[in-house]
Structures are given as C-alpha cells and as structure tokens.
C-alpha cells in the first residue's frame, strides 16, 4: 500500500519517491496546498475506486495518515 501511495504522491507533488516516508508531512515537507492535497485524494479515489469523505481529508497531515486510512477501509 505504501509503495502505491508513494508513487501517487511523488507524481502529484513533483518529488522523487525516495524522498517520501510515512512521516512525510504534506504542508511542512512537501509544501502542498489544499488543491494539491485534493488532487491527490481524487487520484487515490480513481486508483482504488473508492470515495474518501471530506472529514477524513481534513484530518490528513502525513503520507502515513493516507496509508492507514486506506488500510482501514480497504482491508
């Protein structure tokens, strides 16, 4: 799961996958704004054929938050 998310994050934010860990913060490390975060969420929704609720999006701070959220709802 982490690998797939890492690839998507790297593509959307424009960084190398190696630079992304579970602890990577979207705002502090990747300087991602709200539109970039939503772009990523929409890419994840397409990739996994799911719908992420807005309340959960607002709680996302790190890459790990997304991975754990997906593990919870998919597995």
């Amino acid at each position: 799961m982490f690998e797939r998310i890492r690839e998507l994050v790297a593509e959307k934010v424009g960084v190398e996958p190696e630079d992304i860990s579970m602890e990577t913060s979207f705002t502090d490390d990747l300087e991602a704004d709200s539109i970039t975060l939503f772009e990523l969420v929409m890419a994840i929704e397409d990739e996994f054929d799911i719908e992420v609720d807005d309340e959960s999006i607002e709680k996302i701070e790190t890459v790990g938050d997304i991975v754990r959220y997906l593990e919870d709802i998919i597995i």
Partner: protein
Amino acid sequence: MKIAIDAMGGDNAPEAVIIGSIQARDEYNLSLVLCGKEIEIKRILEKNTSNFNNIEIINAEDIISNDDKPVLAIRRKKESSMVKALYAVKEGNADAIVSAGSTGALLSGGTLLIGRIKGIERPAIGSLIPNMSGGFCLLIDSGANVDSKPEFLYDFAIMGDIYLKRVMNIKSPRIALANIGVEKSKGNKLTVETYNMLVNSQLKLNFIGNIEARDILKGEADIVICDGFTGNMILKTMEGTVLEIMKGLKEEIMSSMKTKLGGILIKPALKNFKRKFDYSEHGGAPLLGVKAPVIKAHGSSDAKAIKNAIRQAKICGESNVNELIEESIMRR
C-alpha cells in the same frame, strides 16, 4: 467551438449572463452549454430571443456562493451550475468555460476537474488592468497562489507571454517583475531569484526588469508577474483607488453651483477617462495553466462583459494557447 457557461454565477446572474451568451452566440458563431436552473434559463431565453439554435441547457439546481469554501464546494456541490459546467469541459461536451462566480471555486475546479497542463505546478490567474496609454497590462498571478516559488513565477511569465501573443496579438510582450525598486538586487529572495531566472532564460522572453507598482498604470509593461498575494494587493488597491477618486471628484463637482457648471464642461473628458478603465471591454481573467480555456468574468459583469469573456474563451481555444504553453514549459 462549444463553450460551457456558468449561468448562475455572478451578481447579475442569470439574466445578464444569459443575455451576454445570446449576444456572443450570434456575434461569434458559437455553440453554448448553459448550466443552471433550467426553468429560469428557459424563461430568460424566451424573453430575449426566438432563436434557440446552438444552445444546450444542463439543469443545475445548486449554486456555489462566495461564502462556500472553494475546494470543498467543488467536491460537495456536484449539482451546482459551476461544477456542471466544469464537468461539461472535463467530459468533452464543451471546449472552454466562462464563469462570473466564485474565483476560488473556479480556480479549484479548473485545477481539480479540468487538470493542470503537464509541467505546470501552479495555474495562475491573469487579470487585465487597463492603463493610461489606452492599453492594458496582464497582472499574473492576481490571486491564485498566495505563496510562490521563483519557478512558479517563471512559468507565469511564459504563460502570460503566450497568452498575450496569441489572444491579444501583442508581438513581443514586455514582461516586468513587480518589485519595490527597479535595481536587480532589490526585493526579497523570491524576486531576486526570479529576476535571475528570467534574465538567464533560454526562451525568447522580452524581460524588461523590475517594475514598481506605481508605474504599472503608466503602461510601461504588458505583463507584470508576481506572487498571488502581491498581485491581489496591487489589483485591489488600483480598483479601490480609481473608484474612490472618481467618487471624490463627483462629490467635489456637485458641491456648489460654480463647480457644477465646471462639471458640465469637463463631463465628456471624465466619461472618456472612465471608459479607459471599463473592465467590461477587456473580457475576463484567464486561469492559465489548465488544460482547457477557463475564463473568470468579473463578479459584477453585465451582458457586455459576459459577451467579451466568451469571445476571449473562443480566441483562447482557437489559438491553441494551452498546447503552446505545454510546448514552452517542456523547453524551459
């Protein structure tokens, strides 16, 4: 060419938007997709034209207001006129979109639903500011990205250059960087680094150096680039200054019989001056960096302003602005 119109967006919507759309269809030979409350759209159409050719209606019961959080509104208000119009473009039912609704929502929707041009990290809004020499200046970014990097500003210069060449027929647009002084070492880290990138650019950009905000109205540059925070401050300061000066002048003229007589004599000159700053002549503000033409018309647009914004979307689509931006971004 087919253009999607957010029929419910703007202070004078839907009436002014629909009348402007009818005028644009007739003058520019276009097909339109009007998105909004079908019953209202039909009522206004029937009142203003007997020709319903090349007009498609997509019913949308909801409206995105300026109080809605932009990104969330795009996701939650799927039945809104703006989101329906954006989807019309995303799904290939229309080639461009015009909206006088919430700027933030249009920016978010354009980026999220239509998508960024490959290589563009941050789409930006370019506002056309009329100047004293009778022309205008494209201020980019005028509010899309409050925080920017030198790379973004460099991209804004590339996008603005192509836009003015193709849409406004300016051969070699003069590009200036908004700053607090004209010397190259002036400003902050962002402006100094951007300056160096523009000077050393491999692309044939006509970069003329820094410009101070007070010189923008003189018409010394065709494009002024800056971060969205600065751009929005420049834009709003200018709008407010012009409005307040005109208001103050009117009050002075009306204050006594003597000044009233003088006012009659200078009325034509004042009218001419006011016309120079009429936003409705120049169309709307393009959102540059997304895959299809997105034009944000002024919130208080009348029918004429809407018609001109639609014309702008048409020229933008027909002159392949977005394809050219993508090519230039690849070569930068």
